[in-house]
């Protein structure tokens, strides 16, 4: 009996000895801080991405740098980070608790020159603000629209890839010096991009392997953006703010967007599922003689917009493919949504809607009968308001008003259009009145 007691005491003692160091470690050590996690750097990791993952904000990377430096002072197994843009595999980093982040950010050493954190979490350093910015890759138009939210873009964006007439038309309103911008051939390779002597090239992140890697191999800095979802939009605007040296502008644009998003989401947040109308966003395209209808994937911005505007997107489960999925009339009929919004990128969506209204088979649909078949607004033909372009905020507001006219009776889309182009692109009212409003389709006069 006594042996048993003795053994239990010994066992407890052993446990305490094993557990003690851990409990001791977790106690905050005051000024030196503590690590919420210790992270070992893997090959290909970027500090901004690590900050995004653990601290939910890629701009918070200086906190990790400071925390790790402090740990390094006591324990050299932690890494010594001289350049946050250069991480080596195997380094041990100290990830501080979220609560410590503000204080650590404040303690961060000021940086000589410019540091930009991009969409892949890379930290790119410049000795001075880049003066020659080149935008390359496909679908440059949408990214260009975001860049031109910054007035500095007018002087500093020196080359764009591709030269669609609509883009030239719109950008010449925004940038009177557009003639000096070089238009690179579509699908330009690294050699041609380099010929325009850029200080930095802005690319979408999926082009990292194809265009980014060769450009960096030659020594041209690259900054990546995503600009596909609202969250990415806010983060990438901050990145662009760093790139243009105008973080205030980035903050102002973000506020503009957030206010309007809040207006929309607050008005619909108390809606129960059944109260939300089922909505279908449908792309109408004509291929030869055939008319094709397709729906966007569940991950794209159209789906997010429909939900934010207080609708139920009917295509969510169906859209399995990576791009626009073709659907036939039978499927549309089986969904029979309350509201149908027709997107058209290459023709007038209002004309498309007229065609559909006249079609007998479409007249059987609930949405057509109750006159809730709408054209998704566009300006400048291919600039539809459903795309990941700054105009998506207009699209969101329009969609919300279309789905819930009663809740958004105070929302004047036309007025918002004026405000959008005036505040975000610096156009004066007269220009908007003459050049843009007349070509807007889908918004009630």
């Amino acid at each position, binding site marked *: 009996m006594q042996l048993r007691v003795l053994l239990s005491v010994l066992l407890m003692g052993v446990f305490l000895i094993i557990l003690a160091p851990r409990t001791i470690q977790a106690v905050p050590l005051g000024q030196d801080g503590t690590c919420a996690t210790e992270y070992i750097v893997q*090959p*290909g990791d970027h500090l901004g991405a690590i900050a995004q993952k653990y601290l939910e904000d890629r701009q918070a990377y200086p906190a990790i740098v400071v925390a790790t430096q402090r740990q390094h002072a006591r324990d050299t197994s932690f890494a010594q980070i001289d350049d946050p843009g250069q991480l080596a595999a195997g380094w041990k980093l100290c990830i501080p608790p979220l609560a410590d982040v503000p204080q650590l950010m404040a303690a961060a050493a000021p940086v000589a020159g410019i540091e930009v954190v991009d969409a*892949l979490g890379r930290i790119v350093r410049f000795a001075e603000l880049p003066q020659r910015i080149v935008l390359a890759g*496909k*679908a440059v138009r949408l990214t260009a629209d975001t860049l031109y939210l910054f007035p500095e873009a007018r002087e500093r964006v020196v080359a764009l890839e591709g030269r669609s007439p609509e883009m030239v038309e719109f950008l010449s309103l925004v940038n009177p010096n557009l003639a000096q911008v070089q238009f*690179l*051939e*579509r*699908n*330009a*390779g*690294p*050699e*041609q991009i*380099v*010929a325009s*002597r850029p200080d930095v090239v802005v690319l*979408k*992140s*999926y082009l*990292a*392997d*194809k265009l980014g*890697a*060769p450009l960096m*191999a*030659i*020594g041209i800095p690259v900054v990546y953006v995503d600009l596909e979802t609202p969250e990415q939009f806010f983060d990438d605007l901050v990145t662009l703010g760093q790139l243009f040296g105008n973080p205030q502008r980035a903050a102002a644009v973000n506020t503009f967007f957030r206010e309007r998003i809040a207006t929309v989401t607050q008005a619909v947040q108390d809606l129960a599922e059944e109260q939300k109308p089922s909505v279908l966003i449908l792309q109408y395209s004509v291929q030869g003689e055939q008319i094709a209808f397709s729906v966007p*994937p569940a991950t794209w911005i159209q789906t997010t917009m429909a939900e934010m505007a207080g609708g139920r997107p009917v295509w969510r489960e169906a859209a*399995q*493919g*990576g*791009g*626009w999925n073709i659907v036939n009339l039978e499927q549309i009929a089986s969904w029979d949504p309350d509201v149908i919004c027709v997107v058209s990128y290459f023709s007038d969506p209002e004309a498309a809607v007229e065609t559909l209204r006249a079609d007998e088979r479409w007249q059987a649909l609930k949405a057509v009968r109750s006159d809730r078949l709408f054209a998704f607004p566009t300006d400048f033909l291919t600039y539809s308001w459903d795309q990941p372009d700054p105009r998506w905020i207009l699209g969101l507001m329009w969609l919300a008003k279309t789905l819930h006219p009663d809740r958004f009776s105070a929302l004047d889309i036309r007025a918002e259009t004026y405000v959008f182009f005036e505040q975000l692109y610096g156009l004066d009212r007269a220009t908007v009145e003459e050049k843009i409003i007349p070509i807007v389709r889908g918004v009630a006069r």
Partner: protein
Amino acid sequence: MSATYHDYNHRTARQLRYLAVGLLGLLLLSVLWGRYSGASLLSPAELWHDPLAQRLVMTLRLPRVLMACLLGMGLAASGSTLQMIFRNPLVEPGFLGVSQGAAFGAACAIMVFGTVPFAVQGLALFFAGLGVVLSYWLARHIRFGGWVLRLVLSGIAISALFASGVGVLKYVADPLTQLPEIVFWMLGGLYAITWSKLLSILPLAVPSLAVILFMRWRLNLLSMGEQTAFSLGAAPTRERAIALAAAVGATAAVVSVSGVVGWVGLIVPHMARRIAGSDAQKSLPVALLMGGIFALGCDNVARTLLAGEIPLGTLTSLFGAGLFILLMTTANPWLRSAA
């Protein structure tokens, strides 16, 4: 008769010299040719004075040009070898599930790993090897036919399985970011070649090519029937397996970084045999050099003709098929047939 045979040997040596000079000349030209400031030739003076151009040439053009050369050589050597050991002049390096397996691996990597370095290359290599292993395994379970027929059939079946896998992945891929990558990879392209990628395949490609070159006379023997090869002292199955492994190794190594490039391995061995004779001892080195020239020429067009990259496989098919037609319709200058 002895005199004629030695003339014949000298002729081959001459052909090799011309081809080698041609290849070196083309290499030099290719380094200066590109799209830096439009489709043009960089003058050496420009190159001397412009540090940006220098970096461009050293980091982008030079590895690419060397890789194109290696690609052509590897595929030509592999095609020659496979045609001999399968006793069939219509065999292509990738047919035993190597090409389609690599395509499947690359598609998986593009979908799942995106921008992780070496993911595409690694998975492509792995699945290329897996394709051959599966073809071999399946061939052993086929109940009829000689070993050649069995291997060809199982190669077709395994290739088809991988191809359908790629089809499914293409459907699910994002059309802006992933699908063009997958499609481009399947058509072949050298736009992403860096020094590290080039160096990474050398440990596999160089020994494979060396084995093929050393075995080239033996390939003549292996192209005979089992009985004959045996009676002449060969271990036909084992030696063919070694040659096959070397050919697959060379193919998989280059395909893993360049994507699926077709026709080079099919047409170049033919052309080489046409000008140098069927004896692999002579025709294989000729095929090697011709393959390098052909692939390099096609890649130059691929990267300079238009602003965007033209897939390399498209050009090799175009020029390869054209040459093939030309070849088949002209009289053979070397062989004189009996009246």
